[in-house]
């Protein structure tokens, strides 16, 4: 009996027999929570109309699906390792395409790194450039991964918020701006980099040239690297123009511009991204890449290359997917905004991107859920909306720093890159809820 007990004890506590010293590395402390892991699980557990995580529920354009199929059925080499820093046909067309857009001759083999999604490009950039104690400026609200990535690289995140300038009238993302004094005050001798995201997730802001010039001036003055996350670069509305900070004078040599095949071609599951920038910086990203994943999948890169070749030929014409998609999404954006307004939520109309945030202050609900006690208000609201109404969204305070998130617990984020039928279902849920009040 005694030995039975001992065996049971040992089985239950076997993990504590491993390592009297700490198991995990310190670099992953404090970065274990992740909203996507939490909220995608919730959306999967409940039957929901999913306007949460940012991916389309419609198919990628047929020509890109065909390109993938063709690659899969292509020769042997499509299924074996390709060039580690990027499949030659892909880096070649990316260089050709973006040289035109940026106005600078991009070298396919020196200035481009292909990565497993833009996410990995961000990781390589932080790991390549940020040392322990370096400061990295992050503009809030920010795509949530920037903060843990800076932390994991031993850097210190310094936050500067976008703030809405006007109150009381319909807001657009253009009304959310930086204070130039506040921004300037964040730069010091320890600042290694600033991260910008345009079009912005979650707000949808498309930075104007003057706003980028302000940032560029500070980067040049303080000799700082600019990390420009431009995954939504083709999705701008109402004629807003996407400007690449790397195209501003003095910026090519200090900017890493990050792009996404998944967002470009509505195929987020392919995980093909890239970093483009001056070779003397990109080479360090390559070092991280060759010591972490080394290669990206060949067939997906081949398909994205074919996609860009086709877009290069149709650039600026009505056949261009880069014009067709934002046109389609513009209408969906309007549809969702109108719906949200009609039920008393206050949307912030985005100038670009996949998302719309809405102010939930005027909505009063009894969040009768003990399991979410103590969580930020928007987290609780979103979980209530999932469980009680079957509608999934994302809480916006997740895109704010620990310091400022308390001030922004009254917004939730909707993804409108969905079939009209999905948006109609969401509409029906919201109307029923509103009518039932």
């Amino acid at each position, binding site marked *: 009996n005694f030995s039975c007990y001992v065996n049971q004890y040992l089985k239950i506590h076997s993990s504590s027999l491993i390592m009297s010293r700490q*198991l995990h*590395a310190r670099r992953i402390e404090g970065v*274990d929570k992740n909203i996507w892991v939490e909220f995608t699980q919730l959306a999967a557990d409940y039957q929901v109309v999913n306007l949460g995580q940012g991916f389309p529920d419609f198919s990628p354009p047929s020509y890109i699906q065909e390109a993938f199929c063709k690659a899969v059925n292509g020769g042997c080499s499509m299924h074996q390792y390709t060039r580690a820093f990027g499949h030659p046909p892909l880096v070649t067309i990316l260089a050709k395409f973006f040289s035109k857009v940026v106005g600078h001759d991009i070298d396919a083999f020196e200035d481009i790194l292909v990565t497993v999604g833009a996410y990995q490009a961000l*990781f390589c950039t932080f790991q390549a450039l940020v*040392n322990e104690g370096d400061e990295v400026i992050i503009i809030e609200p920010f795509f949530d991964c920037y903060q843990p990535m800076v932390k994991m690289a031993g850097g210190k995140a310094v936050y500067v918020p976008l703030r809405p300038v006007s109150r009381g009238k319909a807001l657009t993302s253009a009304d959310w701006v930086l204070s130039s004094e506040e921004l300037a005050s964040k730069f010091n001798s320890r600042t290694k980099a600033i991260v910008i995201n345009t079009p912005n997730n979650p707000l949808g802001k498309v930075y104007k040239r003057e706003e980028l010039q302000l940032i560029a001036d500070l980067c040049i003055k303080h000799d700082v690297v600019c990390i420009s996350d431009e995954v939504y670069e083709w999705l701008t509305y109402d004629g807003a123009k996407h400007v690449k900070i790397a195209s501003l004078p003095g910026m090519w040599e200090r900017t890493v511009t990050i792009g996404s095949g998944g967002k470009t071609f509505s195929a987020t599951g392919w995980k093909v991204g890239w970093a483009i920038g001056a070779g003397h910086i990109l080479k360090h990203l390559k070092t991280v890449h060759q010591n972490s*994943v080394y*290669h990206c999948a060949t*067939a997906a890169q081949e398909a994205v290359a074919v996609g860009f070749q086709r877009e290069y030929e149709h650039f600026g014409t009505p056949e261009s997917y880069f014009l067709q998609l934002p046109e389609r999404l513009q209408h969906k954006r309007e549809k969702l905004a109108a719906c949200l307004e009609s039920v008393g939520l206050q949307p912030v109309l985005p100038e670009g991107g996949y998302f719309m945030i809405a102010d939930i202050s005027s909505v009063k609900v009894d969040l009768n859920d003990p399991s979410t006690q103590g969580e930020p208000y928007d987290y609780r609201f979103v979980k209530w909306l999932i469980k009680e109404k079957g509608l999934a969204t994302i809480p916006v305070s997740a895109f704010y720093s620990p310091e400022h998130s308390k001030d922004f617990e009254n917004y939730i984020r909707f993804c409108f890159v969905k079939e009209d039928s999905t948006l109609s279902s969401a509409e029906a849920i919201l109307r029923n809820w509103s009518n039932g009040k």
Partner: protein
Amino acid sequence: MNLTHRSIRSVCHFININCLRNFSSSKGIMTSSRHTNSKRIEGLDKNVWVAFTSVAADPTIVNLGQGFPDIPPPAYVKEGLANAAAVDKLNQYTRGFGHPALVKALSQVYGKVYGQQIDPFKEILVTVGGYGSLFSAMQGLVEVGDEVIIIEPFFDCYVPMVRMAGAKPILIPLRVKCNKKTNIVSSADWVLDPAELASKFTSKTKAIIINTPNNPIGKIFTRDELQMIADLCIKHDTLCISDEVYEWLIYKGHQHIKIATLPGMWDRTITISSAGKTFSVTGWKLGWSIGPEHLIKHLQTVMQNTLYTCPTPLQEAVAQGLLRDYELMGQPDCYFSSLAVELEGKRDRMAAILQDVGMSPIIPEGGYFMCVDVTSLNQDLSHMGDDEPYDYKFVKWMIKEKKLAAIPVTAFCGDASKKQFEKYIRLCFIKKDSTLDAAEAILKNWNS
């Protein structure tokens, strides 16, 4: 693809000139000293593959260098991918730690192999190749100042990954046993010295990395050898990272044993595998780590902060492939066994070709590489200078003069062991017959 452009670049890599730096300076671009690399990647920019694969990509060269098949993957695997890509949902994000269909299939297959239940959601992580699993394990579990024991010759990425984690690689070589009755050397003759191994474990040792079957030698660690390692892991309370990407490529008379199945080892072992090596699709870059929840959860944390999720259609296709072969496990039709049978023939052919020209190959017990001692060729390379080990010079010379590519084995060992391995080159034999024919022709005509 402009071949001349590529050749120029290869030459630059070869003779280590940074062409672009000179070009940039002449254009007057200001490169600030602040935009230098972070400390964690200091000295990690060199890489044997970057140096050799671009040169070997020349189609006139018979490429037995980098480890990938030039034979097609099984048809059902390719079909699986085409089918997956046709489903809308499968072109969008899936679960970060592994597509549900895939982790469930892995749980089935490995549940059978391990003889225990494996939780698909807590005890498995899907990564970008076996490489990605190694990285996640190092970043998640290896602390600055730790020591990590690595057995030479080792797959070359282990050392830079340990260094990038701020830890110190502690190397111990396999050594060839003396007292052989015949001249034929097998990978089984390369062994660890037990006392030497024991001496490498200190209070700073966080983990030992083992690779079985081993790349480049092809050694399959026996149960006794693994038990010796396990005993030390348990005694010193260290972790074991077991790279088993070639786990199915086991030749007759040998058995692959998972160190995680030895008593006391499940709780302290991360076992790494590869879809690329399993299904002959190295370009799919999918792999997985299997281990106890209290270790896997840290690898998952790394995953969610590095690339978040792996491509969906590829994961679905691997899941379908695994389910198909799970049904056939133990039968000759199962790809896990049929590939090994096919490769054994190529192994034996490769060995015969090398022996016929007077070289001494190490016959591998597993994997798809063969190392061979080139001493008997008596190739004088003194004209190539003194700054590189013999095998690097030999391979470069052989590529240029004989149009045959291999990989120098000192790329897989530390400085202290270079003299021990510098007469060896590594050949990959997972190649179609015509490639092996071409290699044979070159070797037969060596002295003409």
